[in-house]
């Protein structure tokens, strides 16, 4: 991986030039979103633009973080819904996922079934949406968090199984056998031995699952209609499509909605990247 041969000078320049371009490409949209959220409406409607705000304007954040006004209520309710839905779905998916992963890894469950599981999340959701819609409507759970939690579970479980299976596969089996010889049953062994060992993998899976659920739009768009279940992606789509004319407000919503996933991604970078890459790069 480490090149021992010294680079010619022109290549060094080329390298750093490419890096600067890359950094610009990656950062510019994010920085611009941030700037928009802090610029006054007049700066944002100049032609050509006033890139650096003439004065910093924090009013949108104040507005959005205030339950008392309409926009704030819509935004905060959506954030809360997203938090509740993504967290619940993640917890349930991890529970079901760990058990199933163990079955695939250690109890000879068929790989074809594993693939069928994976195939369900690769199918376009439009193939499921209508029957789900009628079923939820008959059950009276349209426009509730429960409906979304259930859907997100189905979306997260196969992925969680796959990630945890690859992690259980590489554990030495003797450790579990030792636990069983010592008298522990399967579930005791799972809880006291296997789970603590794969805790880092569970963490990575949990974060990836949470981010996936946080990001989901299609089911949320169709199954939620008001503050009681609307998630943040739907709220953002509403803000950007609706009566709001100030780009700054839309940008602020975007910034705030990105804070949780960006923080998770930056802090747990190693975990997450290994989780993302794990399925495809492997001996």
């Amino acid at each position, binding site marked *: 991986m480490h090149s021992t041969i010294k680079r010619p000078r022109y290549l060094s320049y080329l*390298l750093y030039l490419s*890096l600067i371009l*890359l*950094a610009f490409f*990656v950062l510019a*949209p*994010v920085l*611009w*979103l941030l700037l928009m959220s802090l610029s006054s409406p007049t700066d*944002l409607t100049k*032609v*050509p633009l006033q*890139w650096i705000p003439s004065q910093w304007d924090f009013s949108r954040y104040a507005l959005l973080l205030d339950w008392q006004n309409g926009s704030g209520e819509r935004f905060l309710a959506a954030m809360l819904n997203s938090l509740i839905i993504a967290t619940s779905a993640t917890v349930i998916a991890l529970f*079901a996922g760990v*058990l*199933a992963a163990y*079955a695939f890894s*250690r*109890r*000879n*469950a068929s790989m074809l079934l594993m693939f069928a599981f994976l*195939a*369900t999340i*690769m*199918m*376009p*959701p*439009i*193939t*499921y*949406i209508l*029957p*789900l819609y009628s*079923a939820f409507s008959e059950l009276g759970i349209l426009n509730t968090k429960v409906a979304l939690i*259930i*859907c997100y579970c*189905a979306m997260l*479980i196969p992925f969680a*199984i796959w990630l945890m299976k690859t992690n259980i596969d590489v554990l030495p089996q003797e450790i579990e056998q030792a636990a069983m010889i010592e008298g522990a049953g399967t579930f005791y062994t799972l809880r006291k031995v296997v789970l603590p060992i794969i805790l880092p993998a569970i963490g990575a899976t949990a974060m990836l699952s949470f981010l996936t659920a946080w*990001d989901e739009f*299609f089911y949320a*768009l*169709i199954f939620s209609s008001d503050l009681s279940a609307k998630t*943040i*992606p739907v709220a*953002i*789509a509403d803000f950007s*499509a609706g009566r709001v004319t100030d*780009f700054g407000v839309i940008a602020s919503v975007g910034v705030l*909605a990105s804070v949780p*996933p*960006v923080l*998770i991604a*930056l802090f747990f970078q190693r975990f997450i*990247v290994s989780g*993302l890459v794990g*399925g*495809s*790069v*492997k001996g």
Partner: protein
Amino acid sequence: MRSLIGAKQQKWLLLAPALTVLALISFVPFVKTLWLSFSDSEISALPTVVSFIGLENYIYALTDPDFISSLGRTLYFTFISVGAEVILGVAVALLLNQQFKGRTLMRALIILPWAIPTIVNAVTWRLIYNPDYGALNSLLMQLGIIGEYQSWLGDPDVAMNMVILADVWKNFPLVAYVALAALQTVPMDMLNAARLEGANAWRRFFKITLPWIIGPLLVIIVLRSVEAFRVFDIIYVMTRGGPANQTKTASFYVYQEYFSYLRSGSGSSYAIIVALISIILIYGYYRAAKRQNGSL
């Protein structure tokens, strides 16, 4: 693997929760959609008589030029956007595999687009493309590249490509990370040997590096294609299928058939056709993953 006493019963017990959820939320609805696609069902508040009409919906769908062209657009979106992501991703991976100061920081930085929620990404780019006050117009004007502001998403000829750019920005990091991880497994000895043989950088890349990382790349390419093929959210926010239907992809088409025209029967047949194409892609994924991992 050693088989174990009582493993059979335990296997199903362990699988039960996952199986239940997936059966109810995925398998059963799929079968029901399949059934609906052979019927003249419509979404309505009143109970209606639904009758079986055989392949009529499918014949209609396959002779509907709007639907066929939406499929074509979806394939275009999939092909161009995944292609660009792969080229950009591999290039970035090669770059980040070099030694330079701040490499760790750069590697961390490119997770940013991936972490931004899809909808926020769509909204951001919509604002950037804004015909009246957008950043792209302003930047290009100040650089002297364009003479007057353009309506990027309003022009049927370029709208799709602009959506693709937004999608590439969000998704290339994934490819880059996979490629980078694969690059780190390329044996340095092999590269050095080739260097001593006098192979130039291009040759080394195409003869050694690329064959070495192609397995993992293939997996991620197919996975991204499967995802790109069902694209909906970014379209919904950026263009709603416009202008002149030029960005109306298959998922969006089916969505409208269901929820704007309330035709569940014919909508289902569209959905099943989309699903069938997805299944081909999924099978491709299966082959790529199997090739890479031995077992699935």
